[in-house]
């Protein structure tokens, strides 16, 4: 599904050449849930932009779905730390925004609005927001906005979901709730995920594989396979193998921060 072959990205900053990513090689299979963790400023977000084709690599090659990435990939849904809802649109209209942009939905939307609306309502139902569809984003809590943001990222049934620290601004309880929401959405829809996060427990709970990045210039220093059986209940967070995994990831990151 996703291949990065020896990718380097550098750009001209105010103080000269900055290398955000150096010789990164990454492989994510179709339907896989991959997490990328690393110290802050290690180029995780750059990685996301490379995969979605928002920026082009300086060296190396990015492949998505067997084709070279030369521009925005159009099969990706994205969600960020800030929910970025449009305040003048109701929740359901925010969720349906991608349908106004992506083909073939764009051409069909006006004719099949009722069917699309139903699809959006179903998705809102999965994340527990069905009753809030006609509310406005500013009437909702941060956690609820983030749920809506996930729906917006998924409404056009993307093959790839890119998440850049989507739960970082939420409190611990809401975060765990949303892990479960994301886990269930992923089981149900079977998309490929790249989740960029600081939260090692989040990565270990959700992902099939965890890629650890080094400090800048970032590259992947270690890849772990997480084989806790699925579906994973939240209780897995409190088992010894889980805490051991988080602990060893923690040590690895401490090590690369030093280096």
């Amino acid at each position, binding site marked *: 599904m996703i291949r990065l072959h020896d990718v380097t990205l550098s750009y001209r900053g105010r103080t000269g050449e900055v290398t955000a990513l150096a010789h990164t090689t990454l492989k994510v299979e179709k339907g896989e849930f991959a997490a990328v963790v690393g110290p802050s400023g290690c180029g995780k977000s750059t990685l996301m*932009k490379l995969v*979605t*084709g*928002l920026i082009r690599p300086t060296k190396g090659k990015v492949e998505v779905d067997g084709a070279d990435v030369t521009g*925005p*990939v*159009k099969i*990706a*849904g*994205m*969600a*960020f730390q*800030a929910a*970025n*809802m*449009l*305040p*003048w649109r109701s929740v359901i209209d925010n969720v349906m*925004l*991608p349908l*106004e*942009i*992506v*083909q073939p939905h764009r051409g069909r939307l006006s004719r099949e609005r009722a069917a699309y609306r139903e699809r959006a309502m179903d998705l809102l139902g999965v994340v527990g927001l069905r009753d809030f569809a006609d509310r*406005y*984003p*500013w*009437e*909702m809590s*941060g956690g609820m*906005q983030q749920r809506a943001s996930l729906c*917006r*990222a998924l409404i*056009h049934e993307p093959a790839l979901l*890119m998440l*850049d620290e989507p739960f970082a601004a939420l409190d611990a309880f809401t975060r765990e709730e949303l892990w479960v929401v994301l886990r269930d959405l992923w089981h149900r829809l079977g998309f490929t995920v790249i989740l960029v996060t600081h939260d090692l427990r989040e990565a270990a709970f959700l992902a099939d594989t965890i890629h650890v990045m080094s400090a800048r210039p970032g590259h992947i220093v270690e890849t772990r396979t997480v084989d806790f059986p699925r579906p994973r209940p939240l209780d897995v967070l409190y088992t010894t193998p889980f805490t051991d995994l988080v602990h060893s990831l923690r040590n690895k990151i401490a090590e690369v921060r030093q280096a």
Partner: protein
Amino acid sequence: MRITAEDLTPVAFTLAIFVLWELACILFRIDSFILPAPTAVAAAMVQYWWPLLKNSFVTLWTTTVGFLLAVAFGIALGIIVGWSRAIYRGLYPVMIGFNSIPKVAVVPILIMWFGIGEIPAILTAFLISFFPIVVNVATGLATTEPDLEDVLRALGASKLDIMRKVGIPRTGPYLRGGGGVGNHRRQCRARPPDGSGGLQLPDAAGVRRPDGARDRGHPHVRGVRRAGKAHG
């Protein structure tokens, strides 16, 4: 809808101010030539209702025409300026500069050019509302959240799509504020208490938040009123 005590406060405060004003005029024996009491003003309004109405009508139509022209040209220029960051950054200081010229100072020049009459009035109303509209439209377009832009670009959105779906609508409440359209009121009401939900823009000199939420007294509403005075 139930009327709460809070809904009545504007009425109560307005009445209170008139009462205080009246009392001050009586207590301090202020000459009606210096400051007429509200009752005297009301009496004059009854007595001269016809000339007042006639002149108000002229003010209304000249300022409306000026405002509509400003909306049309302001949006057009705002879209051009906001289209690219480079144009925006280049022209922003120029626009702020023009906007800081006191419009009242321009009025005598307009009168010299066009004579006394409707045209200088229309132009004054136009000048007062034009720059805030340009600056707001341009700012709304040029400062779309980078994350949101990424979301849309990753979907294959063109620059025009982003303008249509995000840039232009986000300047909408500001513009509608001038017309007092209902949706604007609704946005006024519900401000996210923690400030999390709303898109936010940097405050710049003479620039209002385009979500219209912070202040009910919109600059062009005020502008129109002031222009009316300049004319009358």
